[in-house]
């Protein structure tokens, strides 16, 4: 599952020292507002986590101690899987962070910068399934279809049989990582850009005035005041994101190289499928511990690295000079490179199904046949309709429940606020594969297992922690006078809540857009929990990747259709996303 959560910036920031000193007592009645969120989180996240912990130390109800853990580690390849997971969590965030900073700096204050950033942001909105389809098309081992393979053959001058295979056992992890970096750099660029914009240019001038060179400017006017923390946040965000490479691996790797690409996410799923028992539970617990530890370290690091943010004041109205020409060209070049995979996807979708499977997308005239075939079956319309309704309902539910819960939580200060922040963050990073079995039990108890209602409940439960965090932070940041005025006016709590929501429109929009896009783009929740009546989009696309080459035309067309709505939403709402989430963290 992907959660391209811009807002974890705000989230991570929140576990820093308390920055809001509003000592509003929570009205007794408002605690009841927490109930829906507590029920969902308790039933579908907290209890299942405990059940998984339990399942990891029992077999068929008998206590077996660490036997499951030993068995999991004795299984061939486990060490490599753990190593690969760690590599993902260290290398990929480093690359994304560096690229994100460079591109954000290079695309600032130039005319084409906005366009560059727009291009970079588009991949962040795509479902990871679509990213996987795109890169599998690009990396196809047949030089008659795969552009990358063709270029490699030309560059190395080797015959097709000896060209390094990007999807082969040796390079498959590199191929997957490249797809992931492609998808996530836009996010890093947005965050860095917001951070850079918050640095007053006068700071750089001051450093220069004292005889500082470029390096000094970078160090004293950017890195020390702001970037260190932003780097930590972006790194942590991407590192947590890499624990969700599952979709990409499932879509991009043929069966013969799946082991060479496997990470804990995949291994847990392969070992225990939809149930959570024995070795699968043991691996899941290890994974859970690693994610939780990573989150805590990130939170601590952020807290130490960032003294309580002070208001940077209005940004200097005097426009600073755009970056040098060569740097601007670099940004433009990156944008062009980022367009190539999108072009490949689009071009493949514009071929007849037979041509798309049999020859290069650049070798025949475009046709709409793949789209026609896609649109002629009932499946596409059904899955689009289903996913639209599901995502809308889930978004509405998450928003409603999170608004209610965020209200009383926003009055907390000091350690309780930090503790709730940490708990909510922990709940938002629990990998759903780890708790699939117990969640199904709980759903069974409320007669929702294998039904669309169950699927929606899981989505809502997984979406709530993050939504509550963002809204709580936004509420807590509202100027005290405004809240006081409302309360003194003797109005009811719901008037206060309405006022809070109105004044935090960017945060509300951001939460709604992210939740909608997350459900729309989901694969893993659908894979684990959808019943016979459900037809989520992610599964619809992933199902066709089994016969990847034979289906590539229709699959590419489906991917394009599936991407339109999330891309539009994220692109249109990107200012609110930044304002509602990122800016909240820098404020």
């Amino acid at each position, binding site marked *: 599952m992907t959660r391209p959560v811009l807002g974890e910036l705000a989230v991570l920031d929140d576990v820093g020292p308390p920055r809001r000193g509003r000592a509003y007592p929570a009205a007794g009645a408002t605690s009841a507002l927490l109930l829906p969120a507590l029920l969902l989180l308790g039933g579908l996240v907290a209890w299942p986590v405990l059940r998984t912990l339990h399942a990891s130390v029992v077999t068929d109800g008998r206590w077996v101690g660490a036997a499951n853990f030993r068995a999991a580690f004795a299984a061939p390849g486990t060490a490599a899987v753990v190593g690969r997971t760690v590599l993902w969590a260290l290398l990929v965030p480093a690359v994304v962070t560096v690229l994100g900073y460079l591109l954000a700096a290079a695309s600032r204050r130039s005319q084409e910068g906005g366009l560059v950033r727009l291009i970079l942001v588009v991949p962040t909105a795509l479902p990871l399934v679509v990213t996987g389809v795109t890169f599998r098309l690009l990396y196809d081992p047949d030089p008659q279809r795969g552009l990358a393979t063709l270029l490699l053959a030309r560059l190395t001058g080797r015959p097709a*049989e000896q060209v390094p295979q990007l999807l082969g056992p040796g390079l498959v992890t590199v191929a997957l990582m490249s797809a992931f970096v492609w998808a996530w750099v836009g996010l890093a660029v947005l965050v860095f850009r917001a951070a850079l914009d918050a640095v007053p240019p006068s700071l750089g001038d001051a450093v220069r005035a004292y005889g500082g060179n470029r390096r000094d400017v970078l160090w004293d006017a950017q890195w020390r005041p702001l970037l260190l923390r932003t780097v930590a946040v972006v790194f942590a965000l991407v590192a947590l994101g890499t624990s969700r490479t599952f979709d990409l691996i499932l879509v991009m790797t043929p069966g*013969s190289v799946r082991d060479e690409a*496997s990470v804990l996410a995949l291994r847990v799923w392969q070992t225990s499928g939809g149930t959570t028992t024995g070795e699968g539970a043991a691996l899941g617990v290890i994974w859970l511990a690693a994610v939780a530890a990573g989150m805590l370290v990130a939170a601590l690091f952020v807290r130490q690295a960032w003294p309580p943010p002070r208001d940077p004041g209005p940004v200097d109205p005097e426009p600073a000079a755009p970056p040098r020409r060569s740097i601007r060209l670099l940004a433009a070049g990156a944008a062009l490179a980022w367009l190539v995979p999108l072009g490949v996807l689009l071009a493949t979708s514009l071929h007849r199904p037979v041509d798309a499977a049999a020859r290069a997308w650049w070798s025949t005239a475009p046709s709409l046949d793949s789209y026609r075939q896609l649109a002629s079956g009932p499946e596409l319309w059904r*899955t689009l309709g289903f996913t639209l309704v599901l995502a809308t309902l889930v978004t509405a539910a998450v928003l409603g429940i999170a608004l209610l819960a965020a209200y009383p939580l926003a009055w907390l200060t000091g350690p309780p606020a930090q503790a709730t922040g940490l708990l909510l963050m922990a709940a938002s990073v629990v990998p759903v594969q780890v708790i699939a079995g117990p969640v199904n039990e709980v759903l069974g108890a409320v007669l929702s297992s294998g039904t669309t209602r169950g699927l929606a409940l899981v989505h809502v439960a997984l979406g709530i922690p993050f939504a509550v965090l963002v809204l709580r932070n936004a509420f807590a940041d509202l100027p005290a006078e405004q809240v006081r005025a409302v309360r003194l006016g003797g109005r009811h709590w719901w008037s206060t809540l309405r006022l809070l929501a109105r004044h935090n429109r960017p945060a509300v929009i951001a939460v709604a857009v992210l939740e909608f896009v997350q459900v729309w783009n989901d694969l893993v929740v659908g894979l684990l929990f959808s019943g016979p009546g459900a037809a989520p989009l992610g599964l619809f696309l992933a199902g066709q990747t089994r016969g990847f080459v034979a289906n590539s035309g229709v699959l590419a067309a489906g991917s394009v259709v599936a991407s339109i709505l999330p891309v539009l939403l994220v692109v249109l709402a990107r200012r609110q996303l930044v304002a509602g989430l990122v800016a909240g963290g820098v404020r």
Partner: protein
Amino acid sequence: MTLRRRTLLRAAAAAGTASAAAACSRGEPAVQVAVVWSGTELARFRQVVAGYGAPVRVVSAGNDIDAFLRARHLAGTSPDVAILPRSGLVVEYARRGWLRELAPAASYAVPPGMADLLATDGRRYGVWVKAAHKSLFWYFRSMLSEPPATWDQLVAITRRLGARARAGIAPAPLAIGAADGWVLTDWFENVLADIAAPDFYEALARGEADWRSRSVRIALERLAELWSIDGAFPGGPRRALLTQYEESVIQVVHHRRATMVFEADFVDDVSARFQRGTEQPVTFRFPGSRAADRPLILGGDAAVAFAGSPRGAELVRWLSGGEAFQPWLRAGGYLSPNVTVPLESYHDPMRRALAAELRDAESVRFDLSDRLPGPFTGSDGVGIWRIMQDFFADVTGGVSAAEAVRRATGQLAAAARAAGGGR
């Protein structure tokens, strides 16, 4: 294992919900059937159950019907009937007490030995409803004038065509979708069925024989002999390991980059979509040691009824009769496991011939990997699929046949032990 259900979309459950709603409105709740099929197959099966006296709701559980049914069982919402793609699952469920004992229709008769696969402790828990013939090579007559009649001839032809392919003057002899592990297990099963005594094959499937024994080694050596031939596969063996089943068929019927492709009767589904020109691909049987030895491997889908559902058992009984599947027989693309189905009812000439073979075959072996327990049964990157892919990579990558066989048998034995069977 039938591939189409793997490749097609699972999203096709649409009509199921609609028909269920219609059924519910008539009062009595519909009998619920979970199937692995999707797309065309699902539509055909709906036509089949439309002929049943009571309302039936068909739901497509997609590729991973096992996970689906386990989750439903956990939640206490199991369907009445399920159609399972592997006989191993039937036995597994029956042993856990999930299934109801069945009595098939009077006209139910399957090739010898097949019915036993769905029984445990002498009780029958499933009936076969669909068969797949998994011992076929597909080729064009214009590209191969004389198909091989024995394994040695197949090796000789592969050598000859391989040499020409290396010289760049002819297509490669064999297309193989080695990226899909089940293709390789199907190869192995055919060779093993030819070499091993039937008892040994069955014992292996039941987890009672040693995977390091001589027959397994010889079967693997045979495969190594063929697969290691230079120029055997279009684009080379590394490319073959990234080639999925459908693409291997496309290499033969569309590009004609390869001369032959081995797989099951359902190859015609892909070839119909991708073939160029009017020439139809034809088949020859998987060759054995002698011209008279023709191993026959069958795969298939079995219907089971869940415990506590007498209406489910009734529906399964009806499905087991020869008449039930008439709509699918008429539409084509269906091979019945029931040998009492008259050959005239097949409208699809290839399947009519295959049905006749099924009747005449002296010895039928059933897909081995489908019968293996737990994860040993294989899926992408797991179990016997993965082991056969490692073996393929070894023998085509310069590892000596002896060493590759030693590694593979060691892995097979270890996997069998881990899955709770074998020695």
